[in-house]
């Protein structure tokens, strides 16, 4: 089954100096408050975080509900924002594949793919023996998932005490944390070019199509970075 030592090692990653607990918790406090304002009850708020566990997706859902979008529109809007999880999964799972590990672990733990857990794993995987990486990953995922659910709960109950300034302060924490994690991850020229092009092209494509901008910017930026890297090697 799951190796406890590595599972706990992963779980404890939220206690370390580069812990995402504060950033992640703060965002989900904001989400909890937002969901309550939208008329969600406590069970719905918790299930929403547990089942979605992806911040931009929850935000888009909330925005769509506010303007009374249809279910199909909600599905498409969320899918456009969260399609990034596909390349994230493909660039993470091969690092954790080991023939001694059962397949269900991979299918089960794909639910934990979200920026914070992904960046921690990408920044640390080399220190963990390949055979045990999936257990470590399940540990990180469970930890960040717990933080998200607790954050939602706190936000739901503190909703009435959070004014607009505090909510804006909470909302900026997430992009700042991710930016810092990205700076830390910038170790090879390919990754640096990918990040810089993504930062530029993402907003640039917004002028053509707000829905497609993240995907188009990511695919264009990532492909150019990949090709420049490949040409340099040759």
């Amino acid at each position, binding site marked *: 089954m799951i190796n406890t030592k590595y599972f706990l090692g992963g779980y404890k990653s939220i206690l370390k100096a580069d812990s995402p607990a*504060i950033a992640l918790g703060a965002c989900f406090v904001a989400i909890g408050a*937002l969901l309550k304002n*939208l*008329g*969600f009850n406590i069970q*719905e708020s918790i299930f*929403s975080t547990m089942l*979605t*566990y*992806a911040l931009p997706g929850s*935000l888009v*859902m909330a925005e*769509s509900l506010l303007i009374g979008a249809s*279910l199909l529109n909600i*599905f498409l809007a*969320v*899918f456009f*924002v969260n399609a*990034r*999880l*596909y390349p*994230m*999964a*493909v*660039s*993470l*799972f*091969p690092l954790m594949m080991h023939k001694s590990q059962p*397949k269900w672990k991979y*299918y089960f733990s794909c639910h934990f793919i979200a*920026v914070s857990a992904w960046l921690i794993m990408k920044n640390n995987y080399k220190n963990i023996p390949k055979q045990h990486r999936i257990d470590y990953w399940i540990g990180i995922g469970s930890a960040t998932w717990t933080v998200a659910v607790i954050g939602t709960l706190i936000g739901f109950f503190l909703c009435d005490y959070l004014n*607009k*300034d505090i*909510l*804006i*302060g909470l*909302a900026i924490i997430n*992009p*700042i944390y991710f*930016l*810092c994690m*990205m700076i*830390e*991850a910038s170790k090879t020229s*390919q990754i640096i070019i*990918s990040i810089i*092009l*993504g*930062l530029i092209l993402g*907003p640039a494509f*917004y002028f053509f199509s*707000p829905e497609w*901008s993240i*995907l188009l910017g*990511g*695919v264009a930026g990532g*492909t150019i*970075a*990949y090709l420049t*890297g490949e040409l340099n090697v040759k």
Partner: protein
Amino acid sequence: MSNSIFYAILVTSLATFLPRFLGAVSSQRIREDSKLFKWFNCLAYATLAALIARTIIFPVGALTDASYLSRIFVVIFSIIVFLFSKKNYVFPTIFSAILMAMLNNYL
């Protein structure tokens, strides 16, 4: 309303689980030293960067109420704090929240 909330949660989690699950399925056949893996690695970082830039420049939710200038200002100062605090993650994140809330209150 509560019925539509239930379906909205269901639809949202489906739309989120789908790319995750498909990614896990495709990963079974991709080796970590392959070119395809390298390409997807670049795609993942670029998409994330695109998402971050979009949340800051074209936000949804609470951040829409903060002025464009104040957001850029907070980002630049938080990165400086991050670099000067020997890459500590707690200082810049807390600093950014306080600065953002204050700027929004006084500007």
